[in-house]
């Protein structure tokens, strides 16, 4: 069993003064999977990444990456992982090619030796090989940073919020790249505040205020959602929220783009009752339909 795990986290705690950044975190990440750590800013994602990449010591608990302990075997871990921190660690005054060469050299290898690993992504920025990193666009910087993290053929790739601040189209492209990296056999541990990226991971953990609030495949997490969920559509979302929220039995009522999601207990108010309440409030032409929850519904319920 043990060999199948790329990362094992057991009872990790970390505090900064009075702030409990991580509270009793335990996780298993299997070899070859994309594992997503999903949660907002300040949830503890980066603290866990820094412990697993051997840059910070945990206060309690222990963790292994590729069977190596993050405290006692930190040197072995550093040789076999790739890490892309939230703020790209690129040398701004070095060119694209120089950055890549630098990272290869640090890991005692060459770009040529591992060209196959980065070819697919590097080919998209190779035409700018002599441009300084500071003059690259955000998307190109991201691709270069990913190449730098992969140039020594790591077994496990740590990506801390690679898509924060990235537009919706570029985010999709980035996840396509991750799928290809995974196909080459690399385990990927990735964090994101975007709930809609959960579905692109094999397994996920939801993290909130330093605690794991749920874990599993996205389908498993969604299947554990205990409440009935209605999707309400209408012209005035914020009035709809205000009408539905005080109704007896309505547990939660949240906007979801052009819909409003209303959670009720299985024996709670039904669609007819909700629609009648909207009509009574003068909100005509609304629709109420039962719908399936997504990861964001689950996060809202658990947080």
């Amino acid at each position: 069993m043990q060999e199948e795990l790329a990362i094992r986290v057991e009872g990790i705690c970390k505090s900064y003064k009075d702030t409990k950044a991580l509270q009793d975190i335990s996780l298993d990440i299997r070899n070859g999977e994309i594992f997503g750590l999903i949660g907002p800013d300040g949830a503890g994602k980066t603290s866990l990444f820094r412990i697993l990449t051997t840059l910070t010591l945990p206060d309690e608990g222990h963790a292994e990456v590729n069977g190596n302990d993050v405290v006692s075997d930190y040197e072995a871990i550093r040789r076999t992982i790739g890490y892309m921190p939230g703020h790209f660690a690129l040398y701004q005054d070095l060119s694209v090619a120089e950055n890549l060469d630098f990272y290869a050299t640090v890991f005692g290898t060459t770009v040529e030796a591992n060209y196959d690993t980065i070819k697919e992504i590097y080919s998209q920025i190779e035409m700018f090989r002599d441009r300084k990193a500071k003059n690259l666009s955000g998307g190109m910087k991201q691709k270069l940073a990913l190449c730098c993290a992969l140039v020594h053929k790591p077994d496990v790739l740590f990506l801390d919020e690679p898509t924060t601040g990235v537009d919706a189209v570029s985010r999709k492209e980035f996840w396509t790249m991750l799928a290809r990296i995974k196909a080459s056999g690399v385990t990927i541990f990735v964090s994101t505040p975007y709930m809609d990226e959960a579905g692109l991971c094999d397994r996920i953990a939801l993290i909130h205020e330093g605690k794991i609030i749920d874990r599993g495949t996205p389908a498993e997490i969604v299947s554990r959602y205990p409440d009935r969920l209605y999707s309400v559509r209408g012209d005035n979302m914020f009035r709809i929220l205000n009408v539905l929220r005080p109704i007896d039995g309505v547990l939660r009522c949240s906007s979801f783009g052009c819909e409003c999601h209303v959670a009720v207990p299985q024996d709670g108010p039904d669609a007819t009752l909700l629609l009648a309440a909207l009509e009574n409030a003068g909100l005509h032409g609304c629709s109420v339909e039962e719908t399936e929850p997504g990861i964001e519904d689950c996060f809202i319920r658990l947080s």
Partner: protein
Amino acid sequence: MDNGNKSVVIRNLVKKFGDFTAVDNISFEVAKGEIFGFLGANGAGKTTAMRILCGLSRPSSGEGTVAGYSINREQEKIKRHIGYMSQKFSLYPDLKVFENIELFGGIYGLTDKQIAKKTDDMLKALSMEKARDMFVRDMPLGWKQKLAFSIAMVHDPQIVFLDEPTGGVDPVTRRNFWEMIYKAASDGVTVFVTTHYMDEAEYCDRVSVMVDGRIEAIGSPASLKEQYGASDMDGVFTKIAGRAERE
């Protein structure tokens, strides 16, 4: 220009850096009290355009007014009459809540008496009376965000610019924030907002989508979805921004 019921009127706005055209002849209007979503891919020119609208940068060519003041000739007046908030910078963490209000109130030229009243009114509206003497750095993110938004409007501006106000924010706080935006708009404040969350684009009265320096599409979410045959704004955005030639 007669801009009676408009908070923003922009005509043929161009901004060049050397031979690079960051903003390529855009024209649009935002009505008073409207929630206007300013969308676009990274590098499409949103930030450059927004800097001009906020009086921080001069256009290479083009005309326009923001809150009734010329983007070419009255930049200082624009700065005094707009509100601005971003996720990256808004409040001073090492100052207390009331000190932040005092500081920004002072910057915008409010009298001590006005600041005292504003402080009371604001904290009451936010149910934060007890947080008056708290350091901003010790506040939960959701509180900080609400306070930052209120402080951006401490001088009762006609229009407030929100630059990715909800990036990285948890789902509940993000939604509470949008309810505040909606409240401000229903009180008549114009809200000009950028976001990468496409579900938030749905909450805007109208949105524009910038691609390669141009406004490629503009309209209500419903009309754009119909025009582009998409079921949601994510679909609309993917269809429009997916055609971008520059990053």
